[in-house]
């Protein structure tokens, strides 16, 4: 064996050792900054997260978000005092919309998180194992995907009974199959790569391969989908709220607010306009962010 001892070079600095990662991050940042829509998405999401975190402390009328009634100031149009006007109970819509951000964030995290938590492992196992394991998982997945999500969620909520928690449960139940299908397809592709075979040839066990080789290479589309899904889950939950199956009225939930406001159309337009706009901007933000992330992380796969 050649024992040519290399002259001990000076130890490398952190920046030198990780030069390629640093370059990669800089490249991502450069690409992301170059896109107006990605930056807009990021700004909207940051604003939303800020409101969700600090909403209750910065709103002008905190008590209005808990169902306070001011009969003297019912249905006032937007003004300096009430930026978004007031509702039929005289509550400040601006305050209620801002506090609603927290509910929406919670909805988005729970549904997306549960969906990914269930769907990703199932997808990886189905894609890697093949055979009857895959057949079983994919059959069930396809079954759930065979009924449009909102229709299935409606049936589940109808069975469980209305309420915000039940809405989230129902949407989580219809959400995971999307991850299974995405991750399964990606796993099938990654599985064929030589490095997976190479890992098998050195005697790696299946869990090692899944964790070290398959999962890291599936991560980009998962991150993109989760970002998109934060928006889509909020949108779906708002839809159920609008139908009247979500949070009961005094709770500041955006979909439910639009639902109540519909009976005050068209004269008191601001009542439905602002909560709806909040949904729109939030979903738009997450979608733009996801789209921007896809452009830099996963440029080749683009179909939703």
């Amino acid at each position, binding site marked *: 064996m050649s024992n040519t001892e290399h002259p001990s070079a000076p130890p490398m600095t952190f920046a030198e050792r990780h030069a*390629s990662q640093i370059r990669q991050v800089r490249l991502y940042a450069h690409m992301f900054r170059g896109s107006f829509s990605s930056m807009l998405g990021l700004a909207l999401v940051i604003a939303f997260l800020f409101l969700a975190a600090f909403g209750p402390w910065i709103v002008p009328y905190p008590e209005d978000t808990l169902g306070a009634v001011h009969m003297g100031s019912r249905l006032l149009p937007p003004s300096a005092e009430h930026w978004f006007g007031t509702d039929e109970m005289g509550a400040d819509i601006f305050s209620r919309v801002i506090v609603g951000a927290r509910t929406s964030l919670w909805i988005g995290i729970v549904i997306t998180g549960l969906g990914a938590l269930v769907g990703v492992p199932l997808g990886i196992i189905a894609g890697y194992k093949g055979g009857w394991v895959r057949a079983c998982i994919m059959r069930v997945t396809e079954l759930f995907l065979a009924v449009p999500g909102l229709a299935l969620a409606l049936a589940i909520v109808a069975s469980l009974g209305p309420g915000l928690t039940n809405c989230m449960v129902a949407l989580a139940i219809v959400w995971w199959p999307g991850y299974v299908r995405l991750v399964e397809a990606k796993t099938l592709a990654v599985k064929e790569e030589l490095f997976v075979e*190479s890992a098998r040839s*050195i005697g790696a066990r299946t869990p090692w391969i899944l964790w070290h080789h398959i999962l890291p290479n599936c991560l980009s589309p998962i991150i993109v989908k989760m970002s998109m899904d934060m928006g889509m889950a909020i949108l779906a939950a708002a839809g159920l709220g609008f139908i009247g199956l979500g949070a009961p009225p005094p709770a500041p939930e955006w979909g439910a607010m639009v639902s109540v406001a519909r009976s005050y159309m068209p004269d008191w337009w601001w009542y439905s306009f602002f909560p709806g706009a909040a949904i729109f901007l939030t979903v738009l933000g997450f979608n733009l962010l996801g789209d921007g992330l896809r452009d830099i992380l996963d440029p080749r796969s683009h179909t939703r």
Partner: protein
Amino acid sequence: MSDTLLDIDGYSLDIATFDGPLHVLKDINLTVRRGDTLGIVGESGSGKTVLVRSVMGIGPKNSDVKAGTITFDGQDITRLSDKGWAKIRGVRISMIFQDPMTYLNPLFSIGRQISDVIAAHERAAGEGVSPKSARRHRTEELLDQVGLPNPADLFDQYPHQLSGGMRQRVLIAMALAGKPDLLIADEPTTALDVTVQAQVLDLIKSLVKKLNLTVVMISHDIGAIATIASRCAVMYKGEIVEQGETNDILGNPQHDYTRQLLAAVPDIEAKPARLMAAEAASEAPSKPTKLLEGMNLRKVYKTRAGGEFTAVNDISLAVNTGEIFGVVGESGSGKSTLARMLLRLVDPTAGDIIFEGQNISGIAGEPLRKIRQHMQFVFQNPHSALNGRHTIGDAIGEPLRIQRTMNRRDINARTEALLDIVQLPRNFKYRYPHELSGGQKQRVCIARAIALNPRLLILDEPTSALDISVQAQVLDFLQEVRKELNLTYVFISHDLAVIRQICDRTIVMKRGDIVEQGDTEQIFLHPAEDYTKALIESGRVTSRAANMRA
């Protein structure tokens, strides 16, 4: 016939990237006269494809012409509008592409694609489009001209129904559809099997003569260039280092790079060095012991249509300890499947594998894992054999982490030692695969394979994804490693010159069967099968061209 058709004068081109502009072409000067056949030789990254694509106005995006001009038949086409190109591209300059699979639209029939090209040319010439039946007739004529059987049936077939060689002929027919003044061929045979390569080259050669074509052909294969081109240019890192008559350049190369390139092509005629060394030592070889045996191995795949496809058909072989065992065959001959079966990466449908006296065809789980440290695989394509998300250090250390209970420091030390063995700098352990060249990546793969001190290495075309000059280095290096670590190799290749140089015994495979086997030198000197003869003959073309100099 001496008027200038294409004149490239002082042409320089940059491509903009995140890390700044890349100087892809530097001061290119080339002249092609009517009736010329010019070959451009170069390895990957030499800029030859960018150059010919610029001539057709289909160069890469973000490219920027820094200086110089391209003149075609007296017209400056350096910066032509789309409208201007419509009269030239495909009409007066036509192109044959590298990979016939991806260059044909999968959703349209062969006939439709060719007759559309004919219609486009008629439109460009302002003649008005001829009726469908006339175009069909002309299409069938073209298909016949490129030597395809039953043009009438072929007209309605789709690309996926044809073999690679047939598809390449279709692409040639398409390129000839407009009776072009200049035909550009971009590695027209690289994606094909060696025996098919020879046929396609013959076809191009006969067409050149018959139709009096002017041809620019680029290739990394010196044999292909020598077959077709009367003049040739050598490209290296975006520059033309040498140009002139093909015979002069091959017989008397002036530039260092050309010499290196020619020297790197293995000589199929040369008597292998190993035999000469063995004769000199005149040592009686000790009685061989069998390290690995395959007995009646068979692999049958189920096709999607429900049929069966036999990849490997009842093959038996024995590999002796310390030898290099060659497996030769074209794509689809089952040699890769065989290799994977020997390592149990693919489960055989039938048959036994015996490694050091132990039957390993039935074992699974922990025993299989344990046996794997003794036998390792080096894959054909180092670019995809390394996980892009792991550093080189992780990749080399992975087998140690899986098979040994070593602490982090020992693994680190061993990784550095392995990097020394494969002659790569130690700080490469922080790098990622995409930062390394092909040859460097293959060294990393080899380091990974020898990390566990295996006894057997199966090498599946370890050099075919690499450039010729790198190929030679990796082959030499593999020999060294073998000597140092006392390894046994199973060496799979389609390149017979390489096989002759290094393998002791060889089997020749065709469609899942062994057609010939025995001592390598015997097979070369006295091939019994036509198939083997054809393989050797196709290897000779390149070898001869590269060894014209005395």
